[in-house]
């Protein structure tokens, strides 16, 4: 009831899986700030804990907390915990985050299945006000236009409150990826406002900087937005530069999104293309039978592309 975990098995969402792997590649770069094993990961693991499995295995993170608001199915969540190092906490992220210690470098992925609202902004406030420098914040929100809502602008305004809403938004701005773009702005503006408050008492030379790294658009079913970045001390600029986030093509530090698009290919086609990848130009791929659009998409995402198969265990 109410949890996305029961609605869908996340592992069958290819775009989501690609996003997860891309985030993981970016997180590996954090070793320029500190050993990855010194980081804590906080996420919403659901029943499947895919993010936890990936980040534990690929990053070696052992301090892991999964926040689960579905208290009714507590036993089932506990049964599905993948590793002993994953701590399950039940309740809303709004009330759990303030309960945690914040003197640990943290990767916080707030992977909501709903649209941006006041509770999303509340979690952001807590993170910005309390997290250690070199921590990462990632926020995923639903950005699917709902055609049944006649006044989407008013609806979104009400969700986030008037003073957090972007001015002059028209109904037509809310179609397609419009909600995603507006949601990113709302999140970004709020985040910068909280950051200014935190920086107030910090001496110049050690103010905190927020640098956006992620701005994903993807769609397994509903249109989703993932926005996020890193918080660091301006004295750590050298370490930040050392991460070389900019040479990852999915890193986006402004309003231009990275759209994760899924090519539709058979296993046989995948193997055929893999043999020819990487390539400078996807047009060089020898596969006339496959539409060019899918060739382009696959050449971008093939290192992260998940394959699903039925197995007998």
């Amino acid at each position: 009831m109410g949890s996305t975990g029961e609605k869908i098995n996340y592992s069958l969402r290819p775009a989501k899986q690609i996003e997860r792997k891309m985030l993981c590649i970016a997180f590996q770069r954090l070793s320029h700030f500190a050993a990855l094993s010194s980081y804590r990961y906080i996420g919403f693991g659901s029943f499947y804990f895919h993010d936890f499995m990936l980040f534990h295995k690929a990053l070696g993170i052992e301090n892991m907390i999964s926040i689960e608001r579905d208290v009714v199915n507590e036993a089932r969540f506990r049964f599905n915990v993948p590793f002993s190092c994953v701590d399950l906490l039940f309740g809303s992220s709004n009330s759990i985050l303030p309960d945690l210690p914040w003197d640990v470098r943290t990767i916080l992925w707030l992977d909501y299945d709903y649209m941006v609202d006041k509770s999303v902004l509340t979690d952001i406030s807590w993170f910005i006000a309390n997290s250690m420098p070199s921590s990462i914040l990632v926020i995923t929100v639903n950005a699917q236009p709902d055609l049944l809502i006649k006044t989407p602008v008013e609806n979104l305004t009400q969700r986030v409150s008037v003073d957090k809403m972007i001015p002059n938004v028209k109904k037509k701005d809310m179609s397609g990826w419009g909600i995603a773009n507006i949601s990113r702005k709302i999140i970004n503006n709020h985040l910068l406002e909280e950051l200014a408050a935190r920086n107030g008492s910090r001496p110049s030379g050690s103010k905190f900087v927020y640098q956006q790294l992620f701005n994903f658009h993807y769609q397994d079913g509903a249109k989703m937005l993932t926005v996020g970045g890193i918080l660091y001390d301006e004295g750590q600029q050298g370490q930040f530069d050392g991460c070389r986030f900019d040479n990852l093509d999915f890193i986006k530090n402004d309003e231009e999104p990275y759209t994760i698009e899924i090519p539709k290919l058979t296993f046989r086609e995948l193997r055929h293309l893999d043999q020819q990848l990487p390539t400078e130009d996807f047009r060089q791929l020898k596969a006339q039978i496959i539409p060019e659009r899918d060739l382009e998409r696959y050449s971008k995402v093939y290192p992260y592309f998940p394959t699903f198969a039925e197995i007998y265990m």
Partner: protein
Amino acid sequence: MNNEKIVNAAPTKEFFIYMLTKDIPLVRAIIDLVDNCLDGAHRIRGDEDYSELWVRIEANKDSFKISDNCGGISVELARKYAFRFGRPKDMPRLKHSVGQFGVGMKRALFKIGREFKIESFTETSRFVIEEDVEKWKEKPKWEFEFKELEEKLTQPPSIDNRGTTIIVKSLNESVAEAFNLDNFINRLKGELEIAHQDSLSKGLQITLNGIPLTFSITELLQSDILKPANKDLEFDEPEKAVVKVKLYAGISDSDPSTAGWYVYCNGRCILETDKSNTTGWAEGGGRTIPQYHNQFARFRGYVFFDCDDAGRLPWNTTKTGVDIDSTIYRSVRQNMITMMRPVIDFLNRLDAEKDCREEPAMLTEAVEGAEKADLQSIVASPNFIANVESVIKTPVQQMQRIQYHKPKDQVKIVKDVLRVLSFKEVGEKTFDYFFERECDE
């Protein structure tokens, strides 16, 4: 210059006499007058010890008088600055002052009555100014006149006589009525005690109609197990006076009337027992910090802003609250929220413990075993710490209240079928019925 292009924007005396005074309650106007005495005390004594200094206030239906021995106003200060409406830019700054805006004294005088007399002695000078406000209003010039003036006293007055006396007569009708009410005088006393708590604790004696003001020492409960949170912040910008902030959050007696946040600017209390969102209550829709409720009656938080340049402090001109748009205050508020959250969690656990009588009351014992410590003697700890694991856990299940209306006769039928006694149970049982069949797997 072409006169036709000029629009008259000159202020009128009526604006200052009748309009400006509307912005401030009478009690606050009187507190402002005491602020001036304090700045005098500060000028001669610095920030530490105010013993032997006094402020005497007498208020009755015929007149109002406030006198002090806080050093007096020099002729120079009176002539150039003290009576200007608004603080002139070239005025020599008194460091760490409470007077800031250059409106307090004049606004208070106009608020109280129609005739005033100010007499002030310093070590070397003396002056008297006497004005009838109605007559002054008719004069075109923005000036008061010294009625008596001695710039070089042959014999300096005794230390106890160096000070200022202000007498206001022809009280405004509503003021005379207020001064005649015991309740008003009591309220004035209470508010003076809170606003000037800091100065009172430094030895300044303030009396109201002969009764000395008292002060309570701000204390928080502390023990090996319970440690109040306290933190120092500094706002240091190039070429500006540094703003120092001290924050404390913890618990004390269970008392709804004194629970909440207290905010001080240069020793002056501008916000007391605050339980509003200004100080972080109900933040995040009540999820980060809940709405104030009496189970938090033990909560106390104190914030002290201090700055040599009073203009950088986050107070409003009536000194009755914080300027919530100030960047400094926004930054401090963020810290207040972080600091109060563990206290709130502790009080929730304490409350849950009280509901379960049979378990050992570890938290209650921790509170009862702690002793009050004044803020100066609190051990440094950035977070509120309660080193005690309660057996009782607050239930994680969050509840949602549902309310709806249905035709009375239908509800009665359902109630009979369910064989329950209350409408509350009708709602609960029908919900359970639906949930079991449609939602529970």
